[in-house]
């Protein structure tokens, strides 16, 4: 199962991919949404774990771009924000909103439930 990890914090990308690899997933990491956007022009994945607030392009902007392209991949937001309007995001089609710091076990459980 291929999981795209997008976070401008390199450490977070590393930690997530380390964890997911250990659980038998195939993570691909991007430190910006623009990079990921470029990737999804040609490639695909089974799930996306994406930071919300990032320079240049935010997680929501990436999600909207994918929607426009009709690319339907389960989209998890992993955010450090504390006042996120979760319901609004879920209404837009976001699969789940996760808050940092996040129990990494929960992420693999969620991915397995897709």
């Amino acid at each position, binding site marked *: 199962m291929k999981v795209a990890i997008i976070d401008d914090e390199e450490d*977070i990308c590393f*930690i997530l991919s380390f964890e997911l690899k250990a659980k038998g997933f195939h993570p691909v990491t991007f430190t910006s949404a623009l990079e990921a956007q470029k990737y999804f022009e040609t490639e695909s994945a089974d799930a996306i774990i994406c930071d919300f607030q990032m*320079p*240049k392009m935010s997680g929501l902007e990436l999600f909207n771009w994918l929607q426009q392209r009709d690319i339907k991949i389960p989209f998890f937001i992993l955010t*450090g*924000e504390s*006042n996120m309007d979760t319901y609004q995001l879920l209404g837009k089609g976001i699969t789940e909103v996760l808050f940092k*710091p*996040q129990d*990494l076990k929960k992420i693999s459980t969620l991915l397995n439930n897709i």
Partner: protein
Amino acid sequence: METNSTSQIHHFFDPETDLIATFKNEKLTSLSPAWERLLGWSLDEISKMNLDDLIHPDDLEITHKEIEKIERDGKTNGFVNRYVSKDREIKWIKWRCFRNPLNSSEIISVGADLTELYLKNHDHKISQQEAKIGNWSFGKVSRKFSWSEQICDIYETPIDTNFVKVLKAHFHDEINWNKMSNAFTLCLEKGETQYEEVQLTTPNKRNKWIACWWLPRKIGQEIIGVEGLIQDITNRKEKERVIKETDNRYEVVLSGINAGIWDWTDVNGQSQYWSPKLYEILKYSAEEFKPTVDIVLELIHPDDLPKIRAAISNLVEFNVHYNLEYRVKCGDGQYKWIQSSAVALRDENGHTWRVIGIVIDIHDQKTAEAHLEEEKQKSVQASKLATLGEMAAGLAHEVNNPLTIIFGYIRILEDELGSTQFDLEQGKKFLGLIKSAADRAAKIVSSLKEFARDGAQDPFEDYPSSEIMSMVLELSQERFKKNAVKLDIEMADDPVIHCRKLEISQVILNLLFNSFDAIQELNPKWVKVQIKKESGKILINVIDCGHGLVPEVAEKIFTPFYTTKKTGQGTGLGLSISQRIIVNHGGEIYYDNSSLNTKFVIKLPLYYELP
């Protein structure tokens, strides 16, 4: 009783008008008919009475002495005594006595009634024209008034009018009239001397003040009538009124501004005069508290005393007037703020001999000012906390990221430690990453804590610009980075700023966030902070990629509560408080409309360069 010789004597006098009495061996032998008219008794009655009973008791002694003299020397030089008539009137009689040349055993006394003359003389003696004194008298038995011309002058009535009627018509009101009649009655019945000042209107419609005396007329203990004196005191009353009015005017003016007066009447002495208002202001009792210079100095707040001592000595020595605000301990033990100014009176040699001061109660004003200042301080803090509130979401993000990293690496390390192929070097690297993430979180939290502290009372100190900016960046750079806003700091060198670090950080941060909010829709987004020393000042420019403010907005931005942000996103206090902070630093903050981009300028003085 009449003898031939006496009849002969009578040829020299007019028995109808002249008082004639003849004595033989100290016994009354004849009286002329004039006695009847004078004393009101018939000659028969008189002859049956002891003559001494007719003489005023006070005059008995002199009368007897004179009679002795006649018996001895055969004549007197003449004397005056008073008789009391049947209707208890006093009669002044001038006597001339001599031996009957035809009958040496007979003494002839010829008296002249001088009563009218005496009243006039008496009048003349006591009433100087300018004193305007008139007198009147009232006989208890005769119930008759008599009065002098002066009285008529004062009351402005013809001399032949009815005295009581005149008086009654003169008085304004019943109260005054009752005053007069009570005084009269008391004097007549109880023999008590009375004094009143009354106001009346004369027939010429003039208002007059009259002082009245009622003196009992007595024969021994017996009250036989009332002697009255009246004086026109209208001029005196008018002067008193003017003085009182002037005094009142000053008193009103001074009481209106809550001012008291102190008067150090002799600078070589101790004692001071305090006006009633001053006693009132400082809550002392005029009966108990007698101010002296030493006591007054002791009342002054110890912190204010040196400046007061200096001011007084400058005033006394060099005539430098002062106007100072200081605290004085009041009668209730509390200190009160007063404003006092004083002037020195100097003699022709330039020596100060007297100092007079005015004291104004400014306590309420001072406490209100202090309260207002406190409120202002609170609003600075409140606005900062509002900024913090706006920042809170972003700051949570900045703490949560390092925490995610810390938890993540710890989890990896837990797994690794359990595995057989644990890579020690990699483990160490993870620990280092945990530490740096923890440092990052700690730094944010400590900056936040520092920023949240109320720094309004901090001392002014010298801070390198970099130290101030590092605090600002700690609280802002993540937010800028995440939103792709380029934040540049340009510092030519690292100028030292003499300031309250927290307050200056607050101002810069406020400008940065204003820019941040304003340029959200623009692309690319950038904000620039420039710090440099320029023409003797510290210059801090905060410039963003915006295209300036429209004039209507620009002119209102420093007004409290003015905001262009959405409700809930800004208090509208940021810039007004920033302005106050900068002004308190002796600097200025303004919007520079000459710049193509939106530009705010802060100028601070270089205090540290002052000698």
